[in-house]
């Protein structure tokens, strides 16, 4: 395990955890019974976690969504699925490490998994490009989704990206075209598609693998048209106003659920997904199985209609003279 990094507002939780650990250590050394003290402190810790994580500001939610210890796509793959066979490459240019994909088995059923992949240290992030795909990442995703369609297997996508990479090579190879094509083609896949926002849903770079029959969001995941920093820099003319931008953008799971864009919020364990990967994985698995079971009964045409109707209904306007 890497050094347990924590966020500013997690400090009390970390401190209390340290106290408990110290108590247990000294008890072991001196051979005394501290179980009742530990129980009391443990209960206090759970209350604290719930309290802190229920009252996060939008910007704090953004930080939890980007938490360095938060489980990423491959952490879910290893917990939720069996028979994982990772597949690589867009067959045109190269393999993009910011997107992973492959065959997996969920409760016995074959599925295709596609997800953004972030790294946890510098070396991994160089390979993963911090979870920011190039066009070839999107083309690889689409290739794998077509593969799933060919063999009539459902697709599950995991969304966790700061956004599509803004670079020279990405533009040269058609970042916009790759995203646009993915969105259109996902809208016509004749198989069930379920998307789970597990961390950062960064704009077009997220939507490019997010056109699902269902959009599920982890409790502390976010989904936004632009990062709060980017929005603040443009509209407030300084990135320092990211707190205001995060609030204004209404990017939390509860906002997206309230607005009918997220179909379900998957609650995270106390202290957030990073506090308990296994429990988080279990909850995601349960939700995926439930939604895929529902979708499995639908005909290909109905699945396409359902997905298109879902996205074509989004938006609010007034219509009068």
């Amino acid at each position: 395990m890497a050094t347990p990094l924590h966020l500013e507002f997690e400090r009390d939780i970390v401190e209390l955890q340290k106290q408990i650990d110290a108590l247990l250590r000294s008890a072991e050394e001196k051979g005394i019974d501290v179980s009742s003290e530990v129980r009391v402190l443990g209960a206090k810790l759970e209350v604290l976690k719930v309290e802190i994580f229920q009252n996060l500001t939008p910007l704090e939610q953004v930080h939890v969504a980007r938490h360095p210890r938060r489980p990423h796509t491959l952490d879910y793959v290893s917990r939720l699925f069996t028979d994982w066979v990772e597949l690589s490459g867009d067959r045109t240019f190269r393999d993009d490490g910011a997107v992973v994909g492959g065959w997996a088995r969920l409760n016995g059923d074959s599925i295709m998994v596609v997800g953004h992949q972030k790294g946890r240290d510098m070396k991994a992030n160089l390979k993963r490009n911090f979870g920011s795909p190039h066009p070839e990442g999107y083309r690889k995703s689409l290739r794998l989704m077509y593969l799933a369609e060919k063999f009539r297997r459902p697709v599950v996508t995991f969304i966790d990206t700061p956004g599509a990479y803004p670079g020279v090579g990405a533009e040269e190879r058609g970042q916009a075209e790759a995203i646009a094509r993915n969105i259109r083609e996902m809208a016509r896949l004749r198989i069930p598609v379920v998307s789970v926002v597990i961390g950062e849903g960064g704009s077009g770079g997220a939507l490019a693998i997010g056109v699902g029959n269902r959009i599920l969001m982890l409790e502390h995941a976010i989904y936004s048209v632009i990062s709060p920093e980017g929005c603040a820099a443009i509209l407030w003319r300084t990135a320092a106003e990211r707190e205001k931008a995060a609030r204004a953008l209404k990017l939390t799971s509860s906002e997206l659920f309230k607005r009918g864009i997220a179909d379900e919020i998957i609650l995270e364990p106390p202290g957030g997904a990073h506090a308990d990967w296994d429990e988080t994985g279990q909850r995601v698995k349960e939700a995926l199985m439930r939604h895929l079971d529902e979708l499995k009964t639908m005909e290909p045409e109905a699945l396409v209609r359902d997905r298109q109707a879902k996205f074509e209904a989004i938006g609010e306007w007034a219509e009068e003279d």
Partner: protein
Amino acid sequence: MAWFRKPKQPLRSADKRDLPSEIFKKCNGCGELVYRERLAQNAQVCPECGFHSRIPPEQYLTLLLDAGSFVERETNLHSLDLLEFHDLKPYRERLAAAEQKLGRRDSVVVGDGVVDGIPVCIAVMDFRFLGGSMGSVVGEKVARTIRRALELRRPLIIVSASGGARMQEGIYSLMQLAKTSSALARLHEAGIPFISVITDPTTGGTTASFAMLGDVHLAEPGALIGFAGPRVIEETIKQALPKGFQRSEFLREHGMVDRVVDRRELKQTLVLLLRHMWTGWDEEA
């Protein structure tokens, strides 16, 4: 000191500067002063250097459609402020100011028209209206135009000019990428042509949805076209960008655009393409 030295004449351009601006306009491309009337005759393309000045939707409709054929649709839609978005100015105020200034309700004009006898559905974006940004209204108007093209079996033309998704509508604006692209999926399957005309500037979510989903992509010379804006890229890679990066010609070289077309030849090109791709339109008419 020379007694008879000729007093230095001010440069000729000094005279030019005094010329009334209602008659002349300085070209942003070559800096020459050009008669406004000549610019107008050339669809606001500089006759000296070919620089394409931005033009509003009405001018594109005149330029591309047969005279008097345009019928505007979906004029009743206007934006709501669902997020009650307030940055340095409230979104409502920004909307009202743009409405007041431009006399339209959002950044796209849609409707039916005829191109050299061929009935089409058309949408033209207005960059002057909040940077041509795409919120719920733009997404819905474009989607309705696509559905209409599908229903009436008419080719679709979209002239893009947009900074991308409209931040003030948050996630709703992002989802307009999916709304428009989903409708285009059906048009694609129905075998109805869609020609995307990309003008200066077209970036962000507009490029990453319908602008890049045409059967054919035409771009005006020198137009900025991209996913990320050049400033964002420079800040990310900490390098200056090469000259011509993200311009139409660059996109054509990199395979993202079929042709770079002078605005004055745009209609002619559309007609040629439509006749190639849309056989049988006359039997059905």
